[in-house]
């Protein structure tokens, strides 16, 4: 890191970085500043609104207090629906993602064509956001929980398939070799040498995705795909701010609940 001065010179100067390193750092900083300046100067905002924002925010949160629990029964029902969307979608996605992971892992895929099919499925599922999937499926299935489940499922397949595929690629090949030497068929090798090795990753990934899906399910209702988001949208549209804050608190409780459950399951299973 430091430049070593020659022994003949008297050392009265020290710097942490070489000149080149320092130039790189200043250059990086300057570049960042320029980018930020560009973004700030050209972004299309009405600055009066920005200066006004703290007042507006305070005003809004003031109107949310105190939370109004009168609609709590239907909020809780919607929360239950949200949990169901996340759980069912995760279960379906896990089932579908298994073969996708199998064909998109380099060491198990039957051939190059299947590898690319698998990768294509993963990329298209992962890059399209849940909300966009939901827009599409609401158009197909009509508003409601079914569109939500399918949307969450489509988004989860890519996530689960990618992580499971990576887990398959990281397995120890030695047991596979041993079972090949025993004359076991391909399917039995998968069953005995690959499945047990991937099992911990499988559960970890499924639990993680369930936790993420709980959060994602809370917004499905905003595009009409069921769950708590429907009620939130309704309350916002009617400027019923005390109810909005009740819904937000319920969502907070749901997310914390999800985190507690998933960390408990991780500890039990792994």
């Amino acid at each position, binding site marked *: 890191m430091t430049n070593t001065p020659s022994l003949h010179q008297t050392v009265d100067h020290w710097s942490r970085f070489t000149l080149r390193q320092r130039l790189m750092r200043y250059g990086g900083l300057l570049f960042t500043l320029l980018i930020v300046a560009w973004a700030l100067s050209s972004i299309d905002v009405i600055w009066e609104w920005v200066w006004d924002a703290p007042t507006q925010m305070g005003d809004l949160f003031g109107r949310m207090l105190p939370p109004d629990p009168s609609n709590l029964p239907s909020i809780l029902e919607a929360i239950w629906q949200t949990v169901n969307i996340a759980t069912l979608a995760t279960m379906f996605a896990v089932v579908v993602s298994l073969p996708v992971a199998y064909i998109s892992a380099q060491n198990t895929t039957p051939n190059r064509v299947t590898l690319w099919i698998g990768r294509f499925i993963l990329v298209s599922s992962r890059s399209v956001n849940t909300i966009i999937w939901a827009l599409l499926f609401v158009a197909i299935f009509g508003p409601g929980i079914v569109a939500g489940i399918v949307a969450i499922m489509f988004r989860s397949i890519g996530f689960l398939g990618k992580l499971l595929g990576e887990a398959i690629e990281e397995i120890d090949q030695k047991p596979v070799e041993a079972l090949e030497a025993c*004359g076991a068929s391909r399917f039995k090798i998968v069953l005995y040498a690959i499945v047990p*090795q991937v099992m911990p990753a499988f559960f970890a990934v499924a639990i993680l995705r369930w936790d993420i899906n709980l959060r994602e399910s809370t917004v499905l209702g905003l595009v009409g795909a069921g769950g708590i988001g429907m009620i939130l949208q309704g309350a916002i549209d009617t400027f019923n701010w005390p109810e909005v804050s009740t819904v937000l608190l319920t969502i907070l409780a749901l997310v914390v609940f999800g985190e507690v459950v998933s960390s408990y399951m991780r500890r039990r299973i792994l």
Partner: protein
Amino acid sequence: MLKISKLTKRYGAGDPVLKELDLTVEGDQLTSVIGSSGAGKSTLLRCINRLVEPTSGSVDLNGTEFTTLNRRELRTARRRIGMVFQSFNLIDRLTVMENVQSGRLGYISTWAALTRRYPREDIRHAYELMERVGIAHYADRRADELSGGERQRVGVVRALMQRPEILLADEPTASLDPKTSEQIMSLLRDLASELKLPVIINIHNVTEAKEYSDRIVGMRYGRIIFDDRPDRLDKPEMDEIYAGVPAMDRAEVGAVA
């Protein structure tokens, strides 16, 4: 009887790792293959059951020519060759019994494999063999809970579950401490004579090879340059087999003669 003739293996365009090699093993002989790293020992063993595809030559086990089998036939034929590995190659997260039964995967139905409902005869046989090598009380334990020597015993039992006609062992003691490694060697020797099973062992430790084998094969640069009883292996032969190996590595190999 295993009869290997003119076996050649070449990786890519380089010099062949095995050069027209001939070897015949029969009866309940325990044959040790010695030689420095890179002499082709491991490739030789893996060419026998075609874990490594030989380039040319013939491998004949009791009348079956292995090199010309198609995939399906090869799978059936591999059941007849048991193999034991240097790093045991067990499935860590499965129980000892499942590991042992995985040796029977070539025989049992997929349903039985999936539900772990193994045939009664296989279970009886498994307990018998585990009892023989002293691991029967571990049947329900996970394989990764066992010590190295115990794990290699599981590996041996898995290979024997196949009721093989020959047993191949690729450096079976290289990952074990000296005491355990002697136990495994004497186990392999005893099993060879009890089960009338020819055994071929790749081994680094010449002292152990001399003590436990009926026959020693010395390899160098893909050729067999020594093939005789252990007591005929003396310093000149050793020097030839390990010629060019730095003194440090020789010490590791074990002082002989």
